[in-house]
């Protein structure tokens, strides 16, 4: 019953978002492609209480990195700092290089495998942005783990079967 426009048109159940690939979260607990940015939070290597908020804007490729209190990252000296590099590397692990490149609107080219390599292909420039939006998204992200488990039936989840066996 599919028409000429493609097999997905009349399917109710299909995987639109591939499941996130497993990665270690210790260094970069949070990465997302949202709000028109690759953005996330990188744990400080020296201070367990401190985190850096890093982002790269899709299209313009403006980047920024600061502490969550908006103190600029000392590593930004005319080029992306090591936090941005970690962020990009982990984003590629989680989403795959193609999805990150498509979202940032950059040509990944052949042979680009890591986030650092992808960053080097950007015509990037530094542009300060507020850490608040990203950091509050991170806190909301963490808050999901605070909700208690529930026995409420969610019939809508029949549209979202778990997939990815044997990956």
């Amino acid at each position, binding site marked *: 019953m599919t028409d000429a426009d493609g097999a997905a048109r009349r399917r109710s159940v299909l995987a639109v978002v591939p499941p996130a690939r497993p990665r270690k979260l210790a260094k970069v607990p949070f990465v997302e492609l949202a709000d028109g940015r690759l953005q996330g939070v990188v744990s400080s290597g020296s201070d367990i209480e401190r985190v850096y908020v890093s982002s790269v804007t899709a299209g313009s490729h403006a980047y920024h990195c600061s502490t969550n209190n908006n103190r600029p990252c000392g590593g930004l000296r005319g080029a992306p700092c090591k936090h941005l590099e970690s962020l990009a590397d982990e984003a590629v692990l989680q989403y795959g290089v193609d999805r990150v490149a498509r979202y940032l609107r950059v040509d990944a080219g052949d042979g680009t495998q890591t986030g650092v390599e992808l960053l080097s292909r950007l015509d990037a420039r530094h542009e300060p942005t507020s850490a608040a939006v990203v950091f509050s998204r991170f806190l909301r992200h963490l808050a999901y783990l605070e909700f208690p488990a529930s026995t409420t039936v969610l019939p809508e989840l029949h549209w979202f079967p778990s997939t990815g066996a*044997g990956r």
Partner: protein
Amino acid sequence: MLGTQLAQLRDSTPTGLTDADDVVAGFDDALLRGFARVGEQDATALTALAGAVAGTPLGERGAEAVGKVTAGSVGQEHLAALAGARTALLGATHDALLDQLDTALGRHRTPWAPTGEAGDPSPARAAARSWLHETALAGWRGVDHELLSAVGTPVEAALAEPESRRLAVLLDGLAAELRAGLPVATMPQVPVRRWADLWARGVLLAQDGPAPATVTATERVTGRLLPLGVDVHEHETAVQVQLHAILEPADATAPRLVRVTVGAAKVATIGGPAVWRLLSAYPVLLTAIAQRRALAVIDLPAQGGDLHWVDGQAQAGEPADPFATARVLLGTAAATAIPPLDRHPVAIAEPVLLEGYVVHDGGLAVDLDGHRLAVALDRLPASGPLTPALVAASSSCLGLVRWDDGRWLVQPLAVQATVKRRPVEAHNGDWADGVTDPKVAKAEARSGDAVAVLRERAGRLLRR
């Protein structure tokens, strides 16, 4: 399930199914382009949708809504009428298909008993209605970063209200897909049926009507619960485990097909077998699932075929082989109808036992006495031991009969197979108490404990 039953399914397609599907497809295409400016083709499609419900109580509202949409002044109430009409058509499709399946299987189904009362108006639902309205005006092709960032408000509000949890989980799942699809105009294939399904369900859940989550239990049950298999649902921020089982009531009434559902909120980086650890509040249930044991349940609240799990009112009992349970009881156990607003072909999930089949196409289809049935290999969860290879090597399968895109499928929940000339058995819930496959356990250990890392971060950063 027998070959003759499959043949009966194939040969008795409900009347009007294709027509209903075409009407729905017309609406779905209109939603791709959005309702801000409706072209002639989409106006015709919307008129057809209103026409399809003309003889029902929705008829007048449907016709009025189409008039408003085509005139370019669509309000939230008109979208509700259109979502209602689409839902009614797919609900009728669900009923016709399930009736056909029940007839083929000889399965008795207890009718739905009305419950629930109108909920109080909620700010979360109002915010959701407004976002869904804007989305419908923009159409999927018009969705941008700004609109997707705006979904945060209704999601956050809905998460804060336990009775709006369904809405929150739905919006989160839809928004994540739209985000991944941006810009939609360059997507090779826009999943228009799927997104319209989610949009329409969202619009209905966002109405201040009967509150589905606060529906009170209509009865209490005591008896022996014999597990059949586990269906796992998951998107970035939610996981749900649905155990299909047969209840033998203590009062010696007829055995019933029931479901037990437990779920948790999560984040995208928690997946695979780690999701079981989010359900540690239900140790008795998880142990029974992992060890394939029967459960004695005492005075458990129930609503139709759904048992509301209370871990303290259950005890894991003797080993109970799900295949044996299915062989002995599945043919006679009675099912229960689901609430009308939840009816949609995706909700069809009927447990069946398939035996003595021939596998085709690497597990993508099975052949029972010359009758083929497609296998939903893309519904094998990463949180369990089933793989396409095991399904391909199988000779018996416990599964759920599903319907999608005009065809019946079976979703495996457990298989008995022969691997290297030895019999093996795998069930979706085998890892509920921890991964039992050393290779998978090692891979899990390599990527570290995501739950623990995020909880540590939450502990340090959240309560400031």
